[in-house]
């Protein structure tokens, strides 16, 4: 039986192992150590939720606190990557994209193409995302679809402790800019994670569960909702196949299309808003390339076209649930 650690510990371990392996790996962001310039502990927080705790003392000088200045330090990470460093910049909440997007999509994403292939920008931008913490509209969004839209960026959305370690190690070793998104609700999730270092390649979806009736493609935390729904549906005689793309850019279209061709039914579960979402993107893919296999309309299960609400009563309504997936799967199975 392999060792079990949390999603959060797996991220910390990946950073630690890569920092030990390569002196060019640095970690920077607001309070990634926490305590710069203050009279007390210099590693007071280790990240706002403690994800980077302990790295400051293990890797002296390479865990760098920044001012609250996202354009400044995200851009600095990108500049450092241009001369061979491998910075991991933490944006804290992905919602803060709003104050540094230019550096990501106009600078990092475009250097290689604009400069005729003569630039490499091996930067990782980590951020947490997702609803469920009563953090309201500016700290709860799922913006992976915005990054996925941009050529030049790679986008990673790990759904479990094993993947988060292997994908983060791959992200750091990758030579393109990578947006690495961690769902807040997954930080405490436990799972089997090997102690040794390993990398999971991008663009390879995981078939989380095999089945022949309905294909469920789920992003990030929604993989867990899909698993919960599939267990219930199993009892009702409906066998779901769950696909976790793991990276939305590049996207493993082959695995998705093969599954849809097998089941003839597709549900996409995406916590973000419905318009121009991963749900609509994957639905469009299946409609265009697996149309003749489809036995029923494609269903997209997403949050609504509204900001994420604060009150728990509303936020629970906002987040796609296992019950939504169960109902959708049953309706597809019954479609004639």
């Amino acid at each position, binding site marked *: 039986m392999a060792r079990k650690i949390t999603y959060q510990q797996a991220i910390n371990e990946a950073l630690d192992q890569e920092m030990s392996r390569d002196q060019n790996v*640095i970690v920077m962001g607001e309070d990634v150590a926490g305590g710069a310039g203050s009279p007390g502990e210099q590693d007071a927080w280790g990240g706002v939720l403690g994800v980077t705790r302990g790295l400051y003392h293990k890797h002296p*000088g*390479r865990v*760098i606190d*920044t*001012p609250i*200045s996202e*354009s*400044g*330090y*995200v*851009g*600095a*990470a*990108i*500049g*450092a*990557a*241009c*001369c*061979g*460093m491998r*910075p991991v910049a933490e944006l804290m909440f992905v919602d803060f994209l709003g104050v540094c997007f*230019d*550096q990501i999509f*106009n*600078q990092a994403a*475009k*250097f*290689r*193409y*604009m*400069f*005729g*292939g*003569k*630039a*490499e920008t091996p930067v990782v931008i980590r951020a947490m995302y997702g609803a469920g913490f009563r953090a309201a509209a500016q700290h709860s969004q799922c913006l992976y679809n915005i990054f996925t839209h941009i*050529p*030049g960026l*790679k986008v990673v959305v790990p759904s479990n402790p094993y993947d988060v370690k292997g994908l983060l190690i791959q992200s750091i070793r*990758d*030579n*393109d800019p990578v947006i690495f998104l961690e769902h807040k609700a997954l930080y405490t999730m436990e799972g089997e994670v090997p102690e040794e270092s390993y990398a999971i390649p991008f*663009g390879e979806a995981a078939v989380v569960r095999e089945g022949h009736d309905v294909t469920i493609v789920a992003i990030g935390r929604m993989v867990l909702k899909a698993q919960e729904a599939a267990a219930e549906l199993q009892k009702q005689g409906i066998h779901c196949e769950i696909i976790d793309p793991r990276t939305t850019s*590049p996207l493993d279209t082959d695995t998705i299309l093969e599954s849809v061709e097998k089941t003839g039914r597709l549900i996409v579960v995406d916590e973000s808003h419905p318009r121009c979402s991963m749900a609509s993107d994957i639905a469009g893919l299946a409609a265009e390339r697996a149309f003749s296999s489809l036995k029923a309309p494609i269903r997209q299960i997403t949050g609504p076209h509204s900001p994420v609400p604060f009150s728990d009563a509303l936020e629970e309504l906002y987040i796609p649930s296992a019950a939504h997936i169960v109902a959708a799967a049953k309706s597809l199975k019954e479609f004639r």
Partner: protein
Amino acid sequence: MTKALTRDDLLKAYRTMRTIREFEERLHTDFATGEIPGFVHLYAGEEASATGVCMNLTAEDHIASTHRGHGHCIAKGVDPVGMMAEIWGRKTGTCKGKGGSMHIADLSVGMLGANGIVGGGGPLVCGTALAAKLRGQPYVSVCFFGDGASNQGTIFEAMNLASVWNLPVIFLAENNGYAEATSSKFSVACDNIADRASAFGMPGITVDGFDFFAVYEAAGAAIERARKGGGPSLVEVKLSRYYGHFEGDQQTYRAPGEVQNIRDTKDCLLQFARRVTANGQISQAELDAIDAEVKALIDGSVAKAKSDPKPSEADLLTDVYVSY
């Protein structure tokens, strides 16, 4: 103390400034024929700034440039022939025809790119400077930006970051008096960009951007300070652009005769030539010979650009990623 200029240095400085001038004047002429695609922002008039700064740099030092970037590229050592091909959209261009005038970059000589986003370069040079600092290398980074960019938050963030991390960065404000068509007298609340330095805990100085020697010394002092670990500084260079914001801009917002008066009285090449010949360091014949060589170089670069191939369909999707 800034390194004293040798005769070879003076010849190199003149050749660089003349190359930039000739490059830009030629683009101005050729743009009018309609053959050059896209937006082109010319650096003519500002040559002493890029040259005076970059004469203090090595290929290991980095610069970030602006949309008005041709001069910075040439002064930092990017090949003008490849640049001309790039501006003409040719496959043989510095960026294989995929960047164009606003995105010429050559990391092999420390040129982080012209930049289509005003103020985009400030954060980037904090990164190149951070890399040098972490690795214990004596390399500096220079962020060229204009009076327009001086009002961008990215520049303020970068100045603060450079100060709190004590980075070897020089913020080189080229104040040519106009952000597009808007005067810096209107747009810069403190009027002198250099005044902003003190708010970020760094020294700020103003220097005459028509005078190569003044820029060379001032930038040299700032660069030497940064190399020795003294931290960032802000150097404001006051100068003027001869042509519009972009080619096609008739500059009706400028005073009648404003540009001609500057060309006649302050021009950096005229001043330089007058001074080095007056004190006998360089002869007029030597300067004339450089003029002829530079003209031949630019003529050749245009002829080559015109006949070089454009990129093909096979090039459309290459170099989006290292691997995907």
